[in-house]
């Protein structure tokens, strides 16, 4: 067992009183698993991820990584954000090596050979990401997809026990996103990375994950756990297969059921049409 989340809750204090963002939530992530947190925006899935990263205080419950309780952010939980958040004053290579230049990183590197392997690892990560010609480029010279590849390399270079990703491909166009998804599949297959992935894209969640936790809207809680039946070897064709479609329809159905609307939309539509006609 790697990551254990027990009765995790998040409440915000507002003027009207306490606002529950995440209802008591429990789940586990095992070694080399790829787990997606799927749900509509504002359902607390990102908040859950931030609490696991230690970037957001928890209101209740507990988080354990390899049996040790999580207190505050740390190197063992790498994070990739939606907006890339590269350091604009550092080159691609320096960005990827940033973790090693910090005190915490330097402590882990004590001998020259360790330093060599560290540099080698960063280089091979960047090469794998297709960035071999961009070591010296600054982030502003890169496209969105390239920036996100640098961000992933930077997170992996620190050898985290678990990789946390917050809608990492949300700002990318459809083609780039598919390329990135394949890259991520390749990485988790070869590096055996344990990943916790937040998304609102059903297709993306199925394509990448071994397991999906479907969240309901506020207060966020897990309404269903879906095991994805496909093996580690996945290709884009999979998205068009009947099994994939069936699973997608099932999950979309779950999300729709949750969206109980308390007003009649047809009535409002008629009202709109009548005001336009006048």
């Amino acid at each position, binding site marked *: 067992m790697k990551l254990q989340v027990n009765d995790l809750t998040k409440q915000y204090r507002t003027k009207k009183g306490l606002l529950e963002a995440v209802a008591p939530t429990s789940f586990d992530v095992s070694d080399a698993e790829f787990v997606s947190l799927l749900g509509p925006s504002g359902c607390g899935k990102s908040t859950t991820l931030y609490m696991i*990263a230690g970037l957001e205080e928890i209101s209740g419950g507990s988080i354990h990584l390899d049996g040790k309780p999580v207190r505050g952010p740390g*190197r063992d939980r790498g*994070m990739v954000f939606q907006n890339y958040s590269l350091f604009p004053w550092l080159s691609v290579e320096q960005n990827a090596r940033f973790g090693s230049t*910090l005190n915490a990183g330097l402590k882990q590197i004590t001998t020259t050979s360790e330093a060599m392997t560290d540099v080698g690892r960063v280089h091979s990560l960047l090469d794998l990401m297709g960035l071999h010609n961009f070591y010296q480029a600054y982030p502003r010279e890169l496209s969105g997809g390239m920036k996100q590849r640098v961000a992933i390399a930077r997170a992996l270079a620190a050898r985290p026990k678990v990789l946390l990703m917050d809608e990492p491909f949300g700002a990318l166009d459809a083609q780039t996103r598919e390329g990135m998804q394949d890259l991520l599949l390749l990485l988790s297959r070869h590096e055996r990375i344990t990943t916790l992935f937040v998304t609102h894209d059903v297709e993306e969640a199925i394509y990448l994950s071994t397991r999906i936790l479907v969240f309901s809207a506020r207060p966020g809680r897990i309404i269903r756990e879906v095991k994805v039946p496909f093996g580690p070897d996945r290709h884009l064709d999979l998205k068009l297969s009947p099994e994939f479609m069936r699973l997608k329809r099932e999950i979309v159905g779950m999300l729709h059921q949750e969206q109980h609307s308390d007003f009649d939309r047809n009535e409002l539509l008629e009202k709109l049409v009548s005001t336009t006609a006048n």
Partner: protein
Amino acid sequence: MDYSVQFQAMPAGDAPLPVNGSDTAAPSAPTLPPPPATTRKARARFRLFALRQEIPSWIYKTLSIATFLAVIGAWAWLSHQPFVNSVFVPTPARVWEALQACWEDGMLWDDVKISALRVTAGFALSALIAIPIGVWLGSFKFIEGIVQPFTEFVRYIPVPALIPVLMLCFGIGETAKIMLIFVGTFFQLTLMVADEIRRVPYELAQVSYTLGATRREIVWLVLFKAALPGIFDALRLCNGWAWTYLMVAELIAANEGLGYRILKFSRFLQTPKIFVYLLVLGSIGLGLDFLFRKLNARLFRWADTTKR
């Protein structure tokens, strides 16, 4: 209502505005077909007045130089008019003679040297202290609570009003003059540096945390580094203010310096020489500003200059 008619009624042939977004760094945009000849003029005018878009640099430079020439021309014309008293508006020729005179007896150069020394000393002292304090102020709410309200209070006290206090504390020597420039710029600069730190996206701090950075490392290796171009720009503005406080500083028992000399000239109605000194002050300011900008662009190549 038929909406397609409305769309056709809009002016056709407008090229899409280039967007300075990071996500649009496409390898190459397809070239647009050449515009019809009739609209070319209108399009050129549209481009020159496009909101916040670049115009050709030769046009920019020509416009800048033309403004200087126009002002000098207007001045020359005005100074030769019978209804203008030549005591108040000297002709360019007389100012030129005065410049040569001031230069030849070494007075002008000595004044420039001593004034530059005062400004630089006061400004450097202010930068040296204001930058670290501003960085902490922008990074920690705790320090903001201690420093910010008081700084805002002092900032609104007019600097000339502090002259008596400064004279009591530092006498009437160089120290008092330097301290006045220091006081005039320090509080502003501190707040500006803090603002630049606050402008750094919080995500950069968050991602550093997940890479194992300590708070001290985040403050100095991330927030400070990210804010450096902005801090450098704040220094440029502050240097300008330091030069304006020079006039005030040289009210304190000075017997040399650009500000002091202007006051003395005005007492004797030597307007051509006043004009010489004004021109020198303006040129120093323009030169320093140019230097700061060039240095900023050179030091911080990584910064996205289109967003400043």
